[in-house]
């Protein structure tokens, strides 16, 4: 099973989850539709932004999805320990670090009231950041859309009907809104739809009904309900007016 590595910094923050093995990256891509972003550069050319290699950096949404559904282990490395130094040596990055807490999928459902474990602390630390975007990510996956970051088009995600290497993207996904409280930014919508007409993409606007505050035990029925808590609409410029 692929292992996601997270570094816990001394100041309390966390690095984004990263994958350090080619086999793991391939499995994530082929089996689970997790694409991430390659982020490894040559030490002498740290500014390079093409021809990147491992590690594969995952978004929080992707990492949550994997751990929640039991597709990956999460290994949190404390940056103050020797283990971190060892972990950052290239030859050792292939295997989970000894002596650190490794969260396996069946442990994920532990109620996070007592966040005694490092990995659960990681989950709680990040849960707020993906409060709206994680339900949207799940929803998009449930209707067969995979996503890459959308900064190039000025939106949250670019949506693909499958592997981004095989298909052209079809959707510009905007930042998820709260279903009743947040209002749609019409000027942004005008921008995106007009852009979408030229690049042949439709704009997806979403409202999250009930943002889950706690990560609950993955439960088949619960999950189904969760999909329904995100409402999605597709908007396109008509071509006139």
């Amino acid at each position, binding site marked *: 099973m692929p292992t996601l590595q997270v570094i816990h910094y001394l100041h309390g923050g966390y690095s984004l989850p990263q994958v350090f093995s080619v086999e793991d990256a391939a499995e994530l891509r082929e089996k689970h539709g997790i694409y991430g972003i390659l982020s490894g550069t040559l030490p002498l050319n740290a500014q390079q932004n093409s021809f990147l290699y491992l590690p594969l950096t995952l978004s929080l949404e992707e990492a949550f999805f994997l751990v929640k559904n039991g597709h990956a282990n999460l290994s949190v490395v404390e940056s103050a320990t020797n283990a971190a130094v060892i972990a950052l040596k290239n030859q050792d990055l292939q295997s989970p670090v000894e002596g650190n807490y490794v969260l396996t999928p069946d442990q994920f459902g532990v109620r996070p009231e007592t966040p005694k474990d490092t990995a659960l602390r990681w989950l709680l630390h990040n849960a707020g950041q993906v409060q709206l975007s994680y339900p949207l990510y799940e929803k998009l996956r449930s209707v067969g859309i995979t996503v890459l970051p959308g900064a190039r088009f000025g939106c949250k995600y670019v949506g693909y009907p499958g592997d981004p290497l095989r298909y052209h993207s079809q959707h510009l996904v905007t930042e998820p*809104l709260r*279903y009743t*409280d947040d209002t749609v930014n019409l000027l942004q919508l*005008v921008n995106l739809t007009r852009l979408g007409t030229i690049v042949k993409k439709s704009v997806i606007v979403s409202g999250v009904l009930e943002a889950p505050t706690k990560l609950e035990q993955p439960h088949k029925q619960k999950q189904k309900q969760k999909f329904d808590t995100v409402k999605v609409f597709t*908007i*396109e410029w008509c071509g006139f*007016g």
Partner: protein
Amino acid sequence: MYGDETVQLVRNNLVHNLSWSDVEVLEKSTFDDGLALQVIRAQPSNEVSQDDAQDRNADGFEYIVPIEMSQHLASWLTVKMMEDIFVKMLPLGTKRFIMAVVSDDGTVMFYYVYEGVHKPRRN
């Protein structure tokens, strides 16, 4: 939430600018939160895109909902409101409505709104 002049502006745009036929302003609907929206029903004058046959509503009508856009004030359009429009204002099984965004400088722009995820049309 908005005055009759906004609805009339969109109606006139449909009739005189786009030459759509059977343009009819339907009854105003007021939602629980006091918001009132109005639907205009019309028949398009020509096909808009190649996919029109499969995308358009079964009854052949387009339903146009005017929405005001201000350059200075936040909009009041929420995602809930879009769903309310589908559920409470349009005939059952309507695939799409047209959101007529009316800017405070008088510009009218038209956008298709589909429930759920919809593939982009071919042009």
